[in-house]
């Protein structure tokens, strides 16, 4: 049970938005500086029931809605020091936290293991602690390997491929430069690409 803290909900339908924003800003400051439970209860009393209604509309599921409220309000308690009244009102700050939570919840529902998370997209709770989950790069055919394959081409074919693909020359230009017939350039190109394709297939 809570000791000495009454659940306040009196603000719910009273006060002008500006007064309310000022009062909530002040309460957030007190939570940040003194871990003031009374101030937090005031913030909670105002926002939690609103977030619950909003979340139910968004998620369409009672349990998910309450999870979103829980996670959002936990962030408000734990990271109140990141609220900056100069950057916006408490309701905008809390709304954007809720948006991030919803984005991540939907991502997890889709069962994605590692993905772009809301902290990357909307740094509302910025100065995040670094992510400890290092991800190892999956094994993949790299262009370096393709480069090695290019290097294993016969010199004459490689010269043609490099002139065309690296220097961006036309087949006619290559023919002129190397003083060989255009048909030869074409056949060397064709043979080289066929060879590369074969090597790639062997590689797999």
């Amino acid at each position, binding site marked *: *049970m*809570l000791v000495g803290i009454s659940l306040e909900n009196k603000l*719910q339908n009273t006060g002008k*938005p500006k007064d309310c924003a000022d009062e909530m800003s002040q309460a957030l400051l007190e939570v940040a500086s003194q*871990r003031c*439970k009374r101030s937090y*209860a005031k913030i*909670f009393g105002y*926002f*939690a*029931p*609103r*977030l*619950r*209604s*909003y979340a139910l*509309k968004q998620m369409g599921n009672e349990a998910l809605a309450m999870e979103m409220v*829980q996670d959002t*309000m*936990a962030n408000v*308690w*734990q*990271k109140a*020091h*990141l609220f900056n009244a100069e950057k916006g*009102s408490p*309701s*905008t700050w*809390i*709304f*954007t936290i809720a*948006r*991030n939570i919803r984005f991540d919840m939907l991502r997890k529902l889709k069962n*994605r*293991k590692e*993905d*772009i998370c809301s902290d*990357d*997209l*909307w740094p509302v*709770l*910025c*100065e*995040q*602690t670094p*992510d400890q989950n290092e*991800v190892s790069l*999956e094994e993949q055919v*790299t*262009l*370096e390997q*393709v480069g090695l394959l290019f290097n294993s081409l016969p010199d004459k074919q490689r010269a043609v491929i490099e002139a065309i*693909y*690296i220097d*961006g020359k*036309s*087949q006619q230009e290559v023919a002129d430069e190397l003083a060989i017939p255009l048909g030869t350039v074409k056949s060397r*190109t064709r043979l080289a690409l066929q060879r*590369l*394709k074969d090597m790639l297939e062997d590689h797999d």
Partner: protein
Amino acid sequence: MINYHPTDKQLQQFAEGNISPALALVVSAHCDVCSQCQEKVDDINIELSSVIENVRAHDFKDPAFEKMLASIMHLPVIDTKPVVAPRIELDGRFFDVPRPLQRFVKNTGNWSHLLGKVWQAPVDLGDAGEANFIYMEKGGRVPEHTHKGTELTLVVDGEFSDGLADYDSGDFIIMDNEHIHSPHSNAVEGCLVFSIVDKPLHFTSGIARLLNPFSHLFFK
């Protein structure tokens, strides 16, 4: 100077969180360096958050709230520390990247030579797919191509042109099968871009068409 921005609709969907993760990442990175778009998103956030003020609040006497409040206030404060911003390195040159991309610097593989004066480093985005940092040296050119899917590009550092327009650091570019272009950089310092393609490129100029059998390796 930034000339190419996401559309207002894209910014709206971004602020709502109703956008694919890959597109959201590139929009977010753009907003990090474009104060104009960041202000628009801030305004949309204010507008969207009024829904919290105006919604009919759920009955607070629900006992679940009291339980939730008590459990939350047992949680410790989370102290956050500013992190040293990781940077992208290429041949001893370091590039700052927009904040939303910083987490992916450690997921970035080695640079490999792509074509001519063009270099590429793959970035693992998890299930959102793969991105690439692409660096064009002065004079570097990607052969003319169109796109089987969508190509998202953010100019991280430098300038390049593609036959359709000239781009500068911070520009947001979205290309699909209606666009044919050939990115190249004539900037002395070259150009670093961050790019996501969801399907292979399709090379369109006579000779480079021969690359198509391999394009899934080069650009996807």
